[in-house]
C-alpha cells in the first residue's frame, strides 16, 4: 500500500461523495423545508441521464446535450410538482411514500416504453476523455475531475443562495413558518414549486454526470436514492451543509471500506473467510455509520436550525 494509492482512493471517495451530494441536496431541501417524503428522486437522476444521452445522440455534441438537458430536468420537476406533488402536501407521510413510490414505477415504465429496456449508448466527448496526472505516476480521468469541480461549484452556489441571498432568506423563512411567511405576502406555493424543480434539476445534473460513466438504463437512479437518504439522515434533514459533509463522509467510507476492508480482514482471518465477509461487511459500512449517528445524534450531525 503506497501513499499515492491511498491519496488516489481518497480522491475516488471525494468524487463519489460529490455525486451523491448533488442527489442528496435536492432531497434534503424537499424533505426538510417542504416536509415532503419524496421517493422518486432517483427517477430525476434517470431523467437527467436519458435527456443528456438522447440529446447528445441527436445533436452529436455532449455539451449541447447537457446544456439542453438541464432545462428539461427543471421543467420535469416543475410540472411534476404542479400536476401531482402539490396535491399531496396535506396528506400524511405514508400517503406521500405510497404516491411517490408509485411515481418510481411510473417513470421506470415510461422510460422503458419510450427508449426500450436496453441500456442507452452514452460516452465521453473526446475533449473530456483524457487524463490528468494528479499525483506522480497517477493518471486520473479528466471527466472525473470535471465531475468533482461541478459538484463543488453546485455546493458553493447552493450555500451562497440559501445563506446570502434574499430568496434564500425567504426559503429559510418558508421552512420555519410557512403561514407567517405567506401572511407577509410571499407566494409560498410558487416558492415550494421552484425549490422542488431546483432539487430535481440538481439530481438531473448528477444523472448527466453519471451517464458517460455508467449504464444509462431504467431504474439506474434507485441505488443512489437509498444512499442519499442515508446521507440526509447522517447530515441532518433539511441541512444543505450537513448533506454536503455527510455525502463526502459516505463517499469516503464506502470507497475506502470497499478497498481496504477485505485486505484488512485477511490479516485476521484465512483468505476464503475474508473474501466472503469483506465485501459483505464493506457494503454494510455506511448503514452501520448511519446507525451510530442515529444513536448519538438522532437529529443528524448538522440539524437544520428550525
Amino acid at each position, binding site marked *: 500500500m503506497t501513499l499515492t494509492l491511498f491519496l488516489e482512493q481518497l480522491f475516488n471517495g471525494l468524487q463519489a461523495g460529490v455525486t451523491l451530494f448533488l442527489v442528496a441536496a435536492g432531497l434534503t431541501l424537499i424533505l426538510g423545508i417542504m416536509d415532503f417524503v419524496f421517493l422518486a428522486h432517483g427517477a430525476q437522476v434517470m431523467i437527467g441521464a436519458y435527456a443528456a444521452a438522447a440529446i447528445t445522440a441527436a445533436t452529436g455534441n455532449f455539451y449541447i446535450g447537457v446544456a439542453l438537458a438541464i432545462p428539461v430536468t427543471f421543467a420535469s420537476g416543475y410540472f411534476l410538482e404542479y400536476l401531482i406533488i402539490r396535491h399531496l402536501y396535506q396528506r400524511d407521510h405514508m400517503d406521500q411514500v405510497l404516491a411517490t413510490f408509485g411515481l418510481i414505477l411510473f417513470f421506470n415504465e415510461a422510460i422503458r416504453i419510450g427508449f426500450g429496456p*436496453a441500456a442507452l449508448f452514452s460516452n465521453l466527448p473526446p475533449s473530456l476523455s483524457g487524463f490528468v496526472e494528479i499525483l506522480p505516476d497517477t493518471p486520473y480521468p479528466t471527466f472525473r475531475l470535471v465531475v468533482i469541480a461541478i459538484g463543488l461549484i453546485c455546493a458553493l452556489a447552493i450555500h451562497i443562495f440559501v445563506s446570502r441571498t434574499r430568496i434564500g432568506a425567504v426559503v429559510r423563512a418558508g421552512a420555519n413558518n410557512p403561514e407567517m411567511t405567506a401572511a407577509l405576502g410571499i407566494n409560498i406555493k410558487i416558492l415550494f414549486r421552484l425549490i422542488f424543480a431546483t432539487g430535481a434539476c440538481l439530481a438531473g445534473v448528477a444523472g448527466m454526470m453519471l451517464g458517460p460513466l455508467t449504464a444509462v438504463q431504467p431504474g439506474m437512479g434507485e441505488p443512489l436514492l437509498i444512499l442519499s437518504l442515508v446521507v440526509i439522515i447522517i447530515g441532518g434533514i433539511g441541512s444543505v451543509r450537513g448533506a454536503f459533509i455527510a455525502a463526502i463522509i459516505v463517499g469516503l467510507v464506502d470507497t475506502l471500506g470497499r478497498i481496504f476492508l477485505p485486505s484488512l480482514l485477511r490479516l485476521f482471518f484465512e483468505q476464503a473467510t475474508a473474501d466472503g465477509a469483506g465485501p459483505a461487511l464493506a457494503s454494510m459500512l455506511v448503514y452501520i455509520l448511519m446507525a451510530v449517528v442515529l444513536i448519538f445524534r438522532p437529529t443528524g450531525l448538522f440539524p437544520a436550525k428550525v
Partner: protein
Amino acid sequence: MKRNITIFAIILLIAGATALFLRSQQEASTVKIGYITTLSGGAGIIGKQMQNAVELAMVHKDRKLGGLDAEIIYADDQRKPDVAKQLANRLVKSDKVDVVAGVIWSNLLMAIHKPVTRSDTLLISSNAGPSPIAGNKCHENFFSMSWQNDQTPEAMGKHMQDAGVKSVYLMAPNYQAGKDMLAGVKRYYKGNVAGEVYTKLGQSDFQAELSSLRAAKPEATMIFQPGGMGINFVKQWKQAGMDKVSKLYTVFSVDGVSLPALKDSALGILGTQTWSPDLDNAINKKFVADYKAKHGAYPSFYAAQAYDTILAIDHAISKSGSTDTAKMRAALASGEIPTTRGNLKMNTNHFPIQNVYLREAVMDADGVVTTKVIETVFIDHADSYAVNCKF
C-alpha cells in the same frame, strides 16, 4: 328395472371413455410450453431478447413443434426465486404444460428444479447452469440447452494459461455465480493470481477498484460482470486508460446485451463463450440473419440459447413421436440435437458437451460492433461435475 340400470351404466361407461379418449386426443395434438424468464426490471432486456428468439423459433417452425400445434406461455419471474417457484407450480399444476423452459439465473433455477422435475415434467434451462444440479443433485427430467456455469470460465483460464500470462487479477460480483466463475478460471490457470476481488452485485462505479488494480500492475485482468455491470466496468476501464496497464479478459460481460451500449469502446476485448453470431452452420446463419432483420440488432447468447431450447423441444417430439416425458427425455438424452452450435452432444448429467470459443469484439461490415470467433479453446468440453451425477 335391473336391465335399465345396466344399460344406463353401459351408456355412462361409453360416455366416460369417449370423453377420456377425446381429451387424450386433444392433449396429444397440442404441446404446451411454459417459458419462465425475466421480463421486468433492470434485467428485462435479457428476457426480452430470449422472448424474441423463442418467437422467432416458433415462426421458423410454423408454430408447430414435432408436427404438433404448440403453445408458449410466457411467465415473468421478476428475477425473484419465490416468484419463479410460484410460476413453475402454476405452469405444472394448473396449465399442465409438457415442458418448463427458460430461466436466466442460477438461484431461480435452484428454486424451481425440484418442484418441476419431481412432477414428471421436463425442465430445460436456456441459460443457468449451477453446479449442484450438474452433480449430486441432478435429475433425469432436467436438461441444459446452455452450459454448466464452470465451462466458459474454464476456457478463459485455459486460454490465459496457454498464452503464457504470468499474473492475473480476478474480479467478480460477490455471489455464488461470481465465485463459481473465478473457481472455473483457476481450475485451468496455474499462474500467479495477483488479486481476487469480489465487488458488490449491481455495482455501478468501479473507479476505486481500478485504482487498486493499477497499483497491482497485473499482466492480465479477468472479469465476470454480467449485464449492466459489464457496461459500467468496460466504460470505466477505457476511461481510466487501463489498456496500457493490463490486458482485459472477460466472461459473460461483453455480449449482445452490453455491446449496443458500449459500441466501439469494446473493440478488441476478448472473452470466451460457447456460441457466437458468426458460428458457421446453417441453423445459426438463419437465426442470426432473421433475428437481425426483425429486431435491428445482433442477438445475444441468451437469445441463441432460447432459440436452441425450442429447437430441442421440436427435436424431442419429432424423434420420439410423442409428448410423453419419458420418451422425450430419451430422445434428448441421446444427443445430436440440432442447434445454433451445431449438433449438440449430451453428457450423462444432461448438460451439453460442446466447444468453447475465444471471441473478440470486432466491427462488422456495417460498422456495428459484434463478436467474432478467433480460436477454439476447447473441443467437446464436458463439465467436471457429471461424474457425481447418478439418476
